[in-house]
């Protein structure tokens, strides 16, 4: 049993979009599907007192995943052994209920011609790589080590140590989704 999660260290992220492009290359995704965009509100403040931070987004692999609860066919699932939320493409009929249910906009329907063709796609933490003991590809490719992946249930893992030792926040915690992705904020460039 494991509970995989990710930490986004915004002190390190520089908004280079490497993870975004890498994910698409590794997963052979078409141009209009992006699992993990990096967003920014741009430069805040005014010259010369300014700051800018970046927020990498991804499926939050929620403990209470609304996309799993709402799926009428059981295609949207949570792997009990890893906590990874994924879509079984054979079972998905493309009704897009999960797309509406996800408060993070983490599910992509681009390229679906109709609900009978294709299926909903999303990040699955590179399950196949994780099963071989490797890191998800976006984590491996991040030069800045701004993404840290690991087992939140293992108190000895890097991710557990990090989440326990520095201030973190999660996105839209008020919805009770219990996301497995934590953020370490960059407090405006100064540390």
């Amino acid at each position, binding site marked *: 049993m494991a509970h995989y999660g990710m930490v986004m260290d915004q002190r390190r992220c520089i908004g*280079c979009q490497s993870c975004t*492009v890498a994910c698409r290359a590794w997963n052979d995704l078409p141009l209009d599907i992006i699992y993990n965009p990096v967003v920014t509100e741009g430069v805040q403040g005014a*010259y010369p007192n300014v700051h*800018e931070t970046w927020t990498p987004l991804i499926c939050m692999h929620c403990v209470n995943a609304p996309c799993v609860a709402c799926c009428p066919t059981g295609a949207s699932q949570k792997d009990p052994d890893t906590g990874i939320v994924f879509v079984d493409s054979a079972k998905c009929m493309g009704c897009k209920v999960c797309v509406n249910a996800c408060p993070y906009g983490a599910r992509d329907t681009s390229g679906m011609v109709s609900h009978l063709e294709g299926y909903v796609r999303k990040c699955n933490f590179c399950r196949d790589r994780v099963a071989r003991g490797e890191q998800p590809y976006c984590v*491996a490719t991040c*030069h800045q080590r701004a993404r840290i992946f690991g087992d939140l249930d293992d108190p000895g893992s890097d991710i557990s140590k990090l989440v326990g030792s520095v201030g973190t926040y999660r996105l839209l915690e008020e919805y009770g989704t219990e996301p497995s992705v934590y953020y370490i904020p960059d407090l405006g460039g100064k540390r």
Partner: protein
Amino acid sequence: MAYYDKDVDIHADGVEVKKSCCYFCHQNCGVLAYVKDGKVLKIEGDPDHPTNSGGLCCRGNIALQHLDHPARNNHPLKRAGEKGEGKWDRISWDQAISEIAAKLCQIRDESGAEAVATAGGTLRTEDWARRRFMNMFGSPNSFHNALLCWIPTFMVETAVSGWSPFETDLGDSRCIILWGMNPGASSLPGMRGYTDLQMAGLKIVVVDPRYSETASKADLWLPLKPGSDTELSLAMLNTIIYEGLYNAEFVQNWCEGFEELTAHIAEYTPEWAAPRTWLDAEQIRTAARMYAKNTPSNIQWGCTADQLGPNSGAGMHARACMRAICGNLDCPGGDLMPGPSMGYYCDEEIEANDWLDEGQRAKQIGSDRYRLTSWPGYGIIAGIAKEKWGKAPTAEWMCEAHGPSVFKAILTGDPYQVRALIVNATNPVNSYGDSKMTLAALRQVEFLVTCDYWMTPAALYSDYVMPIAGALERPTIHTNYGVTDSILCSQRAIQPMYERHTDYSFWHDLALATGQDADQWPWDDEEEAFFYILSPLGYPVQTYDEFVENYRFYYPPLHYYKYGDKGFCTRSGKVELKSSVMEEIGLPSLPTFTPNAENEIDNPEVAEEYPLVLTTGGGYMPFHHSEEFQIESVRYLYPEPRFKMNAATAEAYGIGEGDWCWIETRRGRIKQRAEIDQSLHVDTVWCGRGWWYPELGINDRDDPFGCLDSNVNVLTSVDAEHCDPIGGSWANRGLLCKVYRCRPTEAGINMGRVDTAFSIPGSAPTPGIHVTPSEEPRAYDLIAYDPKPTFDVPEGLVWDKGRKVAWDPASNLVYDPESGWLYDPATYVYYDVLTRYAYDPEAQNLVDMGTGKRYDMETRAEIVGGGDR
């Protein structure tokens, strides 16, 4: 295309893992290529690679899209229609090589070898092979865009300190200045290192007019006026000296010319620099104190240093002095000076520079004006280095023709007609200054050959286009321009696809086809050449591939304070703050301020029409120079060109976010879309570099691929008075511009007419050649150098103007006018000026080092017996 459910299994039987590298910038990040049946299935970052530890940026991840992109050049092409018409015959590689060779030989016979020039690209070609070809062919006219990228800095720092101290030893450093450098967009593995160390206490100062990715993480950000880096350098140097923050012991023991420097820079106070840099004098002092008090500290070079125009060299010189007087040279945590590799063969050793005789060297275009980075200065520096180490810096890069002057020579025949140009791995219209002039030269040159991955504007006007293999199709070797002591190697993942060849194959094949001796080209492919380069290291391997498989890199043990053994690699053996090399070739021997190409203080009449200050040339994701514009999976991140300006300025000009605008300088105008950026000074305009639109094709033969529409180099200047007399670099930063919205009929790519008319000088108000290049005024004149001896030169000795000494060339002994003796500069043993016998201070007599016989000091009569102790 497979979505999500991957049909590629890299773990299947028969899949081989090759240790390749990324080739989309200079970092050479390690890549693992999964290969089956000669095809690359997948790539990923190599977790065991010392550079990237598994990381790959957006460019690195698109290697497979690059490898077989439908727009790649796959076959040799011979022009069938008019130049630029885009009609081609597909021919074989061998036919292309033999026809090109015949034409080059014909031009050499008719006009001399110097009528053939070659332009190189970035650090991703085997340009020692190009140099080797050119040296044996007999032409001194190979060049790169290198004058905008580190080479002048390397040469100035080497003239001052004996070798550029470019390797930052960050583990023990306490403070680093990232000067005009943004690793957050241009060297991502480095950025991780800075962040790691910063979290452990390293202080980071970022000097950048733009609030870059790196500035967003800095401890101190200095948002200076674009192009004023030299003023800032001089004022920081002034602060360090006049506040007594330098390392007095190092200055005393190891620096020459400190007193002259102190007097010379007295006027460059922070108060003097403040209005020129838009910084407060106090900010400048803070930065200087931060750097000088937190030693060991580093200055990380950035491209800005080489792109400032006429005052670039003074800034390099000032920073070289800062590094030295603060005691940061070659010490733990400081700026290390690796010197040439004593392990493997350096590039210089395989360039065959001896083949080019003095007569041909003297014909190198631009070497009369830009002497440090061409044969006159390089020759002196290489001579000193060879004397000290037996090895020298790379000539390819450090000793080249002046690119823009070659383009002007094509257009004007001044100083002579350049008839042929081979363009390899570069897109000159986008990467050199004054694009309209450069494009005109490419259209006009009699014979043009382009070797490239893609059909570029240069390729379009070529007589032959040669398809070149990329990173996965070739092995690579990385030695930082051949001037460091480490080496980083990667394997060929697959053989070149289609009829592509590597650039090494091109020069090798062309060399043989032009009649060069096959014995001089004993390496059939890169693997053989690289194995030869590595062979002195003595690894127990039989092939290059085996070396990569088992070792991959060679980093010799760090050796600090190397100057302690032999002194610095300068004439005096000390850091020459007042540089004797610069003095000898007619350049200011101390850092001396010169105004920027254009600025509101010195050129108010220009500023009246062009009130804003332009900066350009900096890198930004996801592009590298003018590359990757074809690759959809990164282009989507940045589909259209953007320039940045402050919100208040935009509002005053009625410009809104995303508006298409004209940006105009005295040279011309381009259009990009407005991006409002609150981090910029109200008068600063930042303009994205590199823009062309390969997707447009030959929409307009005067402006192929839209290469003049949004290309910022239409705005930059290569006018001789805007070039740096020291390094030869031209002006990309701190130029005066104006910005205004496009009319609706012009707002967009490929809309409205593009102005293609060029002028020499480019800043002239009307098109045409107004002045021949050799009569173009320069930023400042060279200083005549002809020192006379201040003493009587004894008979039999020769006066050396460079070293300002009298010496005996036969014995290498130098005359000391104070004592009237000769001495050996290496051992400081004194010799009698008449007899050349050595002085033995213990026995108080003279020794003939040849025979061992001893002579009396006064009478010089032989001492028979008893003389031996």
